[in-house]
């Protein structure tokens, strides 16, 4: 039987969830026996080269580019999993959600203490190469259909491991409270 294929990405996240995935320690050797990786920062494959079984999404959507990547994942992955607080609820980046985006940008580029006297031409970065900020940070499930949610900031390595092996082996997930409790 062909090995299941996994893709991962970090949208508006801090890569902490990817770090937590690496935190499975020596089980990573077991993991590469179990699965193949496609598009992922772990192997640096930048674009999908084949259809995948499982897509792990870290982070919510704060840029149009995040939306495009997420939609691409939905297109290429049979199962999408929101991994961690940011993917599920927006997380820390969503703290800006109560403030209009114009105010955020003005604070960052025009009025903040480190730019107030240096950005003399009052320029807001707007090169067309730059992605565009969304009006707020969206959790992934508001943009595409998400199949599973793994809580934590980041989710513990054991939780990610349990979830992955359960998905791969098509069995119920083993979920003791200690593995996914908040603290």
């Amino acid at each position, binding site marked *: 039987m062909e090995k299941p294929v996994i893709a991962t990405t970090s949208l508006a996240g801090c890569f902490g969830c990817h770090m937590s995935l690496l935190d499975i320690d020596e089980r990573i050797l077991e993991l590469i026996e179990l699965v193949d990786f496609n598009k992922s920062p772990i192997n640096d494959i930048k674009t999908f080269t084949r259809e995948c079984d499982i897509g792990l999404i870290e982070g919510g959507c704060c840029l149009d580019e995040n939306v495009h990547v997420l939609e691409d994942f939905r297109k290429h992955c049979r199962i999408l999993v929101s991994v961690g607080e940011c993917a599920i609820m927006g997380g820390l980046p969503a703290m800006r959600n109560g403030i209009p985006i114009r105010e955020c940008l003005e604070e960052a580029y025009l009025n903040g203490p480190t730019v107030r006297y240096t950005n003399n031409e*009052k320029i*807001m970065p707007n090169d067309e190469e730059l992605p*565009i*900020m969304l*009006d707020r940070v*969206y959790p992934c499930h508001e943009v595409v259909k998400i199949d599973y*949610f793994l*809580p934590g900031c980041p989710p513990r390595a054991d939780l990610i491991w349990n979830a992955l092996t359960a998905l791969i082996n098509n069995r119920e997930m083993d979920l003791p409270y200690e593995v*996914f409790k908040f603290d």
Partner: protein
Amino acid sequence: MEQQLASILDKYQHNPLRLMDILIDIQESAGYISEEAVGYIAPELNISRADVEQTRSFYHFFSKKPTGKYSIFLNTSVTAYMMRRNAVARTFEQEAGIPFNSVTRDGLIGLFDTSCIGMSDQEPAAIINGKIFPNLTPFRVKELIRDIRAGKSMEELVVEGYGDGENSNEDIRAVVNNNIRKIGPVLDPRYKPGEVIWDILPKLTPEQVIEEVKNSNIRGRGGAGFPTGMKWELCRKAKADEKYIICNADEGEPGTFKDRVILTERPKLLLEGMVIAAYATGATRGILYVRHEYKYLKTYLENLIQGAHERNLMGNDIAGIKGFNFDVRIQFGAGSYVCGEESALIESAEGKRGEPRDKPPFPVESGYLGKPTVVNNVETFCSAVKVLLNGGEWYRSFGTEDSTGTKVLSISGDCRYPGIYEVEWGFSVNDICEMAGAEDIQGVQVGGPSGSLVGPGDFDRTLCFADLSTGGSLIMFNYSRDLLQDVVLNFTNFFIEESCGSCSTCRIMPVLLRDKLKKILDARGVKKDMDDILAWAEVLKASRCGLGQTASNPIISSIRNFKHLYEQKIRRGTEYDTGFDLNMAMQDGMAATGRFPVTQS
């Protein structure tokens, strides 16, 4: 101001552990807790300003701005709305000339919302400067505001005459009614205070007391149902120079008001239970933690404790037992549901924010000030007295095999006889509806918002830990109610309001759940929304305490038991639709940056 603050600090010996009491006194005397007051007391207590700020900002009844000479807190619980809260609230706004959560310009009247105040059998109810005003009507509101404007005192505002039983006691003098409809071992009026302490305790060793309590199979009455005997034994075995007994009288679960009645009618039974627990565990100090909403019982309870000392039921060498010393102090909360969680309650009693602790260790090992602590519900202590009086075997003759004894229920909502019923465990929901005169019932909320909403198909299920577990609250809803809009949405808002904010799951997820529910109520929902709700309920289980873990229960139990109500509103044929529009989402960001470099003059 400084003089007043200094005398408050003196009253509590400049003890930072009493920060709650200090802030309560400041709030009460000044009407708010100013920045200056915070700045003054922090160094006096030898703690940082942030320590004071974080406690002040946590509790509902603390305010950094003036709350008006007459601060009116009107209950937002589901039963209040059922009894025409909207009309009462509108009249308050019209007569005072301000919207809720603001103060009149002359500083006379402040109007505020507040979560359930434990008066579900006499709604809508408000707290005005600590006094309870139940059964409000628009007419009564007009009268109240007129009298306030006329400069009448708080005493003069009361025109109803005092309530039944001890509510008329001169130390209470409240308009509140007990509405006791059925009595059992706990509420038995033939109770003789001190009988167990004087006649039985001296004949038993602490181990024998624990054995008897274990023999009764009594389980914690707060809702979780932990075996009481085992808890006491664990505390007994813990090694420490000091141990504590805490009574949890912080019933904040909407629809619950049994502790209010026990504190009013059987407070001596409760105190006797605490003394017994102290004897069994070896504790020397006790704290009776009472919710702020019941502060009108303060003088009454303080005098009872004083009386217990005078009769040698507390203090040193209690009942002549050499070396058995125990003393209880009262700690009032300041408006926070989560403080009903035992470790949050302990934090609060230490003068801090009521945030639950990470567990283990559990309080029996490391509780108040890190010492072994037993935290029991009001009713548990009361039942323990009866267990010692009549024996564990006698106690087991009540109830079912896994749930022995009786349960004091708070029944409210659409029924002819709302009030307090002490029944044996094992009653069915049908029995209770019949008992309370509830007809044409569409659903019953068993155990408050963190419990479950059951429909007629489940009315033959029984109240016990193995089936329908409850801390005592039952709210009836007849067919005139819109369960999703009136009940489930209200409860979900309650959890959002009362989250302590420590775990992000509990801080944010209930908001996402409410948005989903609103989407479905607006007839924009699709099948996937219900799937997401069910998945997110599991995510919430990551939270540190029961509040977060059960915050999805109103929605989940209504999906389970009233699926048809959801299905009526779900759009068919569409699998997934969130209404997300990338172009709309980008518009503001593009406008802010512009297509070309923007220069601002």
